[in-house]
């Protein structure tokens, strides 16, 4: 069904060269412009930093102005017009972009930087070898899902099988020399935990706002924020002005609901004073508020970064099952 062609590494590189620079994860798992030659070597699953860094980076300048002028001249930071290729995109990260589109491309407040990147970067997916924190199977897709990338590449001897994911991808593939038609490889199921009992209903989660379960879960979270700052679907930011030698720069900087200062108001009042209220926010936002507000969307793609990076070995899906168990036990007791 899906269009698929076999391409050689050499022909692929040539076509990439005609499009623009390559962006890929470096050896520390950060998304960078690739400086080497040939194709970048990347791991077998998503890198440490989420793909969103290329589209909405952790710190981005909005504008700058010179200090000490009576009429400061604002110099806005204009969106990049550079075209390029993103190499090594994993299905979970690509799906996360699909969700971020709801936030950053929704009129009337379209984020022009994000939009420019979305328009100008071609997503070349790479089929993964899942690790034990990968959970894409929970969301009914798997490690070689082509739907949210432009092309999904499967490494084979002396090249790749390229499965078309979008019209943009099809056009790019037409520009690759000597591409021969092939039948597309079968899609693999994504991994999911054996103990999984299904997502709690978004509305039931919302009703459990005052439940004791949040306090029970609190001991296992120190609100370090790693789970959110590295999550591909999290999008919160703050705006700050920072002083440089002769100028001031206004920046948009990544932020996290797991930190106490996130909700602290001028004057000191804070509606989320407890550890449990912050971990509840993370879970409710992803698994209740988003599905309730945006049809069929969910604020998680199962990438598993939050599990891998949590120093307290917390697993958000185990939490969801525990919450679900407690809610349904109570419902069946009629309390």
């Amino acid at each position: 069904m899906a269009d698929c062609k076999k391409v050689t590494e050499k022909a692929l590189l040539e076509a990439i060269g005609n499009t623009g620079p390559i962006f890929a994860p470096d050896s520390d798992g950060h998304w960078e412009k690739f400086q080497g030659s040939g194709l970048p070597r990347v791991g077998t699953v998503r890198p440490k930093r989420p793909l969103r860094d290329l589209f909405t980076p952790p710190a981005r300048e909005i504008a700058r102005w010179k200090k000490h002028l009576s009429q400061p001249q604002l110099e806005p930071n204009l969106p990049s017009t550079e075209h390029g290729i993103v190499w090594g995109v994993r299905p979970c990260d690509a799906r996360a972009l699909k969700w971020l589109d709801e936030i950053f491309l929704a009129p009337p407040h379209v984020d022009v930087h994000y939009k420019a990147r979305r328009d100008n970067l071609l997503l070349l997916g790479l089929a993964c070898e899942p690790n034990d924190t990968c959970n894409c199977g929970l969301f009914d897709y798997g490690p070689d899902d082509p739907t949210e990338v432009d092309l999904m590449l499967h490494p084979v001897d002396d090249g790749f099988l390229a499965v078309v994911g979008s019209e943009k991808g099809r056009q790019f593939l037409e520009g690759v020399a000597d591409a021969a038609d092939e039948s597309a490889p079968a899609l693999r199921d994504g991994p999911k935990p054996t103990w999984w009992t299904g997502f709690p209903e978004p509305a039931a989660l919302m009703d459990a706002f005052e439940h004791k379960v949040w306090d029970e879960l609190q001991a296992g979270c120190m609100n370090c924020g790693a789970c959110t700052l590295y999550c591909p679907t999290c999008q919160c930011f703050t705006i700050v002005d920072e002083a440089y030698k002769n100028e001031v720069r206004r920046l948009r900087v990544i932020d996290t609901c797991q930190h106490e200062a996130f909700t602290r108001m001028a004057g000191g009042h804070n509606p989320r004073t407890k550890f449990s209220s912050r971990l509840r926010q993370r879970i409710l936002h992803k698994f209740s508020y988003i599905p309730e507000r945006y049809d069929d969307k969910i604020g998680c793609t199962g990438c598993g970064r939050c599990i891998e990076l949590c120093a307290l070995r917390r697993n958000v899906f185990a939490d969801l099952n525990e919450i679900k168990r407690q809610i349904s036990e109570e419902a069946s007791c009629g309390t």
Partner: protein
Amino acid sequence: MNQALRDEVRKLFETEKVKSVLGYRQHPLTGEVTPVIIKSADEADQLIFDKRCVYNLSRAVLADMDGPVGVVLKGCDGRALNMRITENDFPREHVVGIAVACQGVVDTATDDLSERCQRCHMRMSPIADVTIGDESAVGKPTKTRAEFVDEIRAMNPKQRATFWKDTFAPCTHCYACRQACPLCNCKVCITDKNNPQWIETSPKPSSNMMWHLIRAFHHAGRCVDCGECERACPEGIKMHLLDLCIAEDVEEMFGFVTGVEDGAQWQFLLYDPNDPDSWLGGPERG
């Protein structure tokens, strides 16, 4: 060990010595060792203690918890708890120390004895209302703290400045190291103050240096070398080396070792009208 621990905890609930207990369990679903808070004797059977219990639970004790709170404590955890009590985070009666004979915990990535345990000189918690396991079997350190910092201390100031600048370069200001630390107990962290803004929000060499120097100075004479800051860092930054260098200075210059002696205050936190240093307004040094 696990049985003795569970029996003791059950007894603590039954004799109403505790209202809740912070401990470790193997998560029934994921199999990972995670912190847990239990509220009754029936739940005691999930508690465990072994070399995978790396987290410092003294961080999880909050003043507004329904006390007394039992806490399973390794040596480093107990020293941190001792500091928190000394600093009036909560009264001594708020906690019941369940000291476990610690043989060291592992680095979860490699399964080797973690660095902090190789140099740990106090494996039993100084806060010990009950003791679990054989205190005499805890073993001795195989390394000294000096072995980890001598190389840095031997550098000249310029080399050292470069070394720290490079060490802190990947910092993203996520503050996971702060959240993990039991002694990052300020009501409002200086990173969260913006009038004036001491530490700028975005990562860059100047703000990285500012954050890490302030962080380390705030831990002078307070850090217990539990290593949790470094373990929590998603970028794998070895920022705790600076705490170690300062701890070495503090012991050398002031003879002070954090959290060992009950109620012993670190000199920087004390005000004494008879302080011999004149700048505090005390008598001139004679």
